[in-house]
């Protein structure tokens, strides 16, 4: 059943959020530390194990994949509720601080890429996956 996929997803979500909150508390910060990232790692590990044991049905996988397909629309909805007015009216200082922080960070992507073994580029997208996206 598709809901099993969602249940697995919810379990990882909550476990990750809980660990992230706990981590924040231990570190004494007023914030969740990496909750979503931990949830993602859990999902990768658990789904990998279930799939190799053939315990995750096609329908359950579809349940998870539905939400990955909804990802971009959800992100678009997220952009529509941002406080763009405050960003624009924050004055030149806020804008400049934001712009330069982004510019500096972009420059460092290439610098840090030199650490460790190089990454392999993703294969080009074929028409079929393009449709799915």
């Amino acid at each position, binding site marked *: 059943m598709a809901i099993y996929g969602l249940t697995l997803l919810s379990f990882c979500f909550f476990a990750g959020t809980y660990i992230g909150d706990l981590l924040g508390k231990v570190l004494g910060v007023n914030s969740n*530390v990496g*909750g979503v990232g931990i949830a993602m790692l859990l999902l990768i590990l658990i789904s990998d194990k279930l799939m190799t044991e053939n315990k995750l049905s096609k329908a359950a996988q579809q349940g998870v994949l539905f939400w990955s397909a909804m990802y971009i*629309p959800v992100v678009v909805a*997220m952009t529509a509720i941002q*406080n763009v007015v405050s960003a624009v009216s924050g004055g030149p200082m806020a804008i*400049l601080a934001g712009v330069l*922080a982004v510019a500096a960070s972009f420059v*460092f992507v290439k610098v*840090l890429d030199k650490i460790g073994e190089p990454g392999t580029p993703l294969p080009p997208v074929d028409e079929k996956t393009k449709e799915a996206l």
Partner: protein
Amino acid sequence: MEMIIKIFTKNGLVMSFMVIGIVMYVSGLLSKMTNKRIAGSAIAIIIGLVLAYIGGTISGKGAGGLGAIPIFSGLAVMGGSMLRDYCIVSTAFGARLSEIKKAGAAGIISLFVGVILSFVVGVVIAILFGYNDTVSATTIGAGAVTFIVGPVTGAAVGASSEVIALSIAAGVVKSILVMIMTPFVAKAVGLNNAKTAMIYGGLMGTTSGTAAGLAATDPRLVPYGALTATFYTGLGCLMCPSVLYFATKAILG
């Protein structure tokens, strides 16, 4: 008309599926007009931001963007942190652990570099604009990290609400810029594999910015970038009011 508005307001989430669907469709058409040189999702994100500006102006609040208008309030559910994080987690399904391990060291370093870099840039700009006391400069520097780290730090070090508002604005500018700029600079910075995506997530840190920016570049990169980005705000909240505050204090006196 009044009845329609009532139905939309009452069933906000369903309404938002319709609105976003229309936005996606229009973006797809516009993308075709550019010969797909600009990805449909990149256009959709820009339309979303424009709608947020219009909505924020009409409501007079700014915060909440288009969602601040009652008939569009469902957008706050669809685009809120709950569904956003749920979807981000789901994208990890099918991500490869081997790729993540390969970028491990660079990913972790990128988090520290990202927080410190943005903070320093923010502090320098703050000083140039005359906010040269330690508390204000630290808060604005923290805002350049993310719009969550700014107010958290500001509250911790006792900044004025005006400065906190500025720090939030700096963070929002950063996040929006990441959304818009990423697909355009992707090629130049080599954003075509899991490793650079993780480094990029660690450097930029804004989860919303990274998520949207990578989605517009290549959706397959999203899980890797989001993975590191989600540690960034926590790290920023940890470092800004402590180590980085003391460092700023040591320099500014």
